[in-house]
């Protein structure tokens, strides 16, 4: 295998706030050109990790290198290479859409003519040209998210940090963001993505890190994780007590879960096994579907709700 360039490397990375451990002694690597997804329940430590990467928060302990530079002493150089699209809206409400981009370019020392060119190009791509001269207040949530994404690209970053980039977006805007992520991946931009949408992670990410309570509890490609933890197919049907024992007989090593009035069976057998079972047994509202990342996520992090 070709040895790949490590762009981000964390060793024993820890962040504590007043006795609360947000990130607990984690190790991870991100390679050049990769799209890595950080998935985890609220409060798992995703955003804290992202914030340490762009020097917003100093680590309490451990080592974190970005493009070979230390977050403890070389923040300015690191930040010049990174584009950040944070979770919350921190667009500048004192300026118009266009001026938001040109003022932000100035923070990166991008000359005015070049800044204007880049701002116009971003507005065009993100379909915000019509809103060029309106104040931020007049934008919808989706438009604000797109503008935040556009702003993160102004310095033509090597590394892009996307913290929940599609939260609150309609499907059209979500696809626009996905298209841009794919486009950037082709240009070898390294992307770190946090999201609560498993379909998004499954579509965009080469590798997933599942974090919970400040620890990385699992990692791998989406397909690897699905195969490893939940198999390939899931059988779902309305709960009926009589069906359970024949089901257990036919699929002795399967994981059978009851969720309210539905039953989910995660297969440990090849495709077609469920169809054969259904020929002999009558079940209500049956559905056979491919196993997905959400199944993995819920299996690993549980179904309990988390406080923010």
């Amino acid at each position, binding site marked *: 295998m070709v040895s790949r360039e490590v762009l981000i490397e964390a060793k024993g990375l820890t962040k504590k706030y007043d006795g609360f451990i947000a990130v607990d002694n984690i190790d991870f690597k991100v390679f050049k050109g990769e799209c890595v997804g950080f998935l985890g329940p609220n409060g798992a430590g995703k955003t804290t990790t992202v914030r340490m990467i762009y020097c917003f*928060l*100093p680590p*309490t*302990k451990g080592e974190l290198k970005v493009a070979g530079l230390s977050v*403890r002493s070389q923040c*300015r150089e690191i*930040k010049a290479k990174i584009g950040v699209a944070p979770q*919350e809206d921190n667009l500048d409400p004192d300026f118009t859409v266009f001026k938001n981009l040109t*003022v932000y370019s*100035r923070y990166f020392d991008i000359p005015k003519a070049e800044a204007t060119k880049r701002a116009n190009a971003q507005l065009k791509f993100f379909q915000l040209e019509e809103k060029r001269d309106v104040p931020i207040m007049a934008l919808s949530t989706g438009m604000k998210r797109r503008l935040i994404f556009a702003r993160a690209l102004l310095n033509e970053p090597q590394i892009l940090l996307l913290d929940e980039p599609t939260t609150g977006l309609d499907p059209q805007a979500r696809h626009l963001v996905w298209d841009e992520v794919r486009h950037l991946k082709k240009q070898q931009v390294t992307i770190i993505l946090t999201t609560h949408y498993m379909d998004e992670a499954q579509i965009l990410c080469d590798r997933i890190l599942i974090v919970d309570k400040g620890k990385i509890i699992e990692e791998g490609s989406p397909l690897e994780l699905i195969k490893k933890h939940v198999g390939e197919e899931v059988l779902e049907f309305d709960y009926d007590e009589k069906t359970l024992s024949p089901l257990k007989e036919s699929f002795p090593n399967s994981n059978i879960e009851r969720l309210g009035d539905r039953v989910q069976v995660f297969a440990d057998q090849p495709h077609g096994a469920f169809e054969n079972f259904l020929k002999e047994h009558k079940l209500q509202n049956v559905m056979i579907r491919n196993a997905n990342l959400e199944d993995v996520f819920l299996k690993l992090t549980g179904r309990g709700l988390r406080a923010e």
Partner: protein
Amino acid sequence: MSQPNIRKSPAPFSIPKLSYRVWRVWRRNFDVFTKTIKVNFLPSLFEPIIYLVAFGFGLGGFIPNMFDQPYIYFLAPALVAIAVMNGSFFECTFASFVRMYFQKTFDAIVATPISVEEVVAGELLWGATRSTINATIVLGVISIFGLVSSPLFLLVPLIAFVGGLMFASIAMCFTAVAPNIDFFNYPAFLFITPMIFLAGTFFPLTSLPSVAQIGAMVILPLTHIVNVTRGVIGGNVEPIFGLDPALIVGLSVVWLGVVTVFFFVLAINLMKKRLTT
């Protein structure tokens, strides 16, 4: 080898590392200011005129000469000093807090090559600029009324910038510890408002008991700006403790210099602590 690098919070007086990038932050605020110049310009023009009319011409008519000049000559330079104080104090409390807390403008800027220290320093320099603008406007107003009598008045913008930087820095220390925006009512009503009236502005310090005179000279920053603006605009400087007026102006300049550096460094470190932990 890996060291046990436990992070310490910044010492309150470590020297901040700053670069030309502070002007990028300054420029952001300047751009907003020029966009909203109408609402920024007019109020600062009206306030000194009202003080001048009410106290200078109105009340002043009943007041005998003060230090060999009509009362209004005593008052006018103090109005310039008050403009210096108000300009940066309100900019770096309420306005900076809004940018920091509600608009998250600082968060957005520190994701770029600009550091937290530079963001805060840029805010402080902008506060000083607001003071300079306001003081210059008031200077214009009092000169129209013929109340400027020394060519040294040309030093007012410089004095306003230094004095403004001092009040900006003091204000930013409050901002660094403010839990919410209402908190600023404390310094506004307990620190700024009393100073408007008690720092040798509307009546001479020398009419107060000597303990109060010492207190005003040691604790109230506005007193020193008043002394200096009086010195350069041509109103007579009060002979506090019977000292020579030139010496008093000299002492005030030194006091302003030392206190400005002290609070400038402290403000940046306190804000850094607030924003990075």
